[in-house]
């Protein structure tokens, strides 16, 4: 899922300094799961801004509402009834949500309430770690289900490098060496022969190097 972190209150306040009526739009998707932009967080932000502006003697009208997602039209449409008279929306969804919402309501100012950080997984309660770089050309079948692109600090395809010591990466002793993890996993699965294959240079044209990407569902091709 996409992991995001709330921006400092001062930064958000600065971005809405000229606003008169504000809606904080929460998202019930990934950012709810990573406890940063769901219903509760949207309400807390709304209350915080309300108090801050009152203390600064510049009160504003502010409320919050949260729907399932901000990246699908059917859910984004449901915000419409809450946008009457609203001049600025603080979206606490990921960057996708902020952009998609502003595409659907172009006459309203949209500002992000969060910094979208990475695609990751929940390691333990309250801790998320990056697991995927969204490179568009998955090689996990050849690396025991551990991605060297995102989990190796150098993203090398044929590791480990000389900086791997005692199973840890040279850049930080708290970061496990991805290639050590791959070796351990393949050894456990009796598939060490996979390591004899030299992986060719990666085709980065399927990643961001090929410009903004688009995915079209098969049925849509058939219709056109």
């Amino acid at each position: 899922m996409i992991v995001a972190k709330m921006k400092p209150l001062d930064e958000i306040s600065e971005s809405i300094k000229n606003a008169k009526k504000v809606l904080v739009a929460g998202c019930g998707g990934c950012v709810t799961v990573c406890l940063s932009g769901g219903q509760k967080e949207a309400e807390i932000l709304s209350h915080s801004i309300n108090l801050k502006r009152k203390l600064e003697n510049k009160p504003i009208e502010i409320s919050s509402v949260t729907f399932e997602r901000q990246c699908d039209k059917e859910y984004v449409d449901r915000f419409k009834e809450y946008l009457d008279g609203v001049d600025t929306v603080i979206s606490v969804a990921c960057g996708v949500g902020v952009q998609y919402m502003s595409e659907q309501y172009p006459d309203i100012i949209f500002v992000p309430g969060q910094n979208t950080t990475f695609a990751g997984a929940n390691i333990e309660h309250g801790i998320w770690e990056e697991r995927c770089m969204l490179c568009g050309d998955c090689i996990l079948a050849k690396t025991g289900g551990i991605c060297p692109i995102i989990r190796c600090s150098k993203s090398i395809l044929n590791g480990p490098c000389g900086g791997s010591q005692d199973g840890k990466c040279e850049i930080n002793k708290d970061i496990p060496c991805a290639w050590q993890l791959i070796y351990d996993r393949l050894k456990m699965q009796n598939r060490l022969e996979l390591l004899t294959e030299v992986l060719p240079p990666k085709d980065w044209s399927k990643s961001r190097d090929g410009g903004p990407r688009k995915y079209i569902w098969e049925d849509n091709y058939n219709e056109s």
Partner: protein
Amino acid sequence: MKQPSRKILGFVCKLSNLINFNLNSKINLAKDINVEIIELDCLGKLDEILILESFNQGADAVFIAGCPEDECFNINGSSSAKKAVNRTKKLLKDIGFEQERLSFYSLSGIKGESLTSIIYKTSTILEKLPENKLKNLEKGVDK
């Protein structure tokens, strides 16, 4: 007669016995201080929204009192409330509101500090602070 102008709001755990055991003794409070206690079935219910709304509605000081963390009937209620208070204190700092107005006490109603002494302590803190600026302002239209 002049109405009390400063308000202390306390959220107290129903199961902590603080109210049953401690409200017999007298407290010497300033005349303009009004105290309101809200019993919660579990302090785990407490969150940032509830505390911020209390200040928004004019509370000059808020205290939260419940059982010691390792004696919580609902296991995590007290520790969960403590975390919520810490998070709210950070928010208050960002908002520019005095953090001292919010305090947390985890104690046993039978063998710990009394509720009256908590109220007295809070009133002492309040004496040193200016009036809650949010009181005299027009309310925002927050949900």
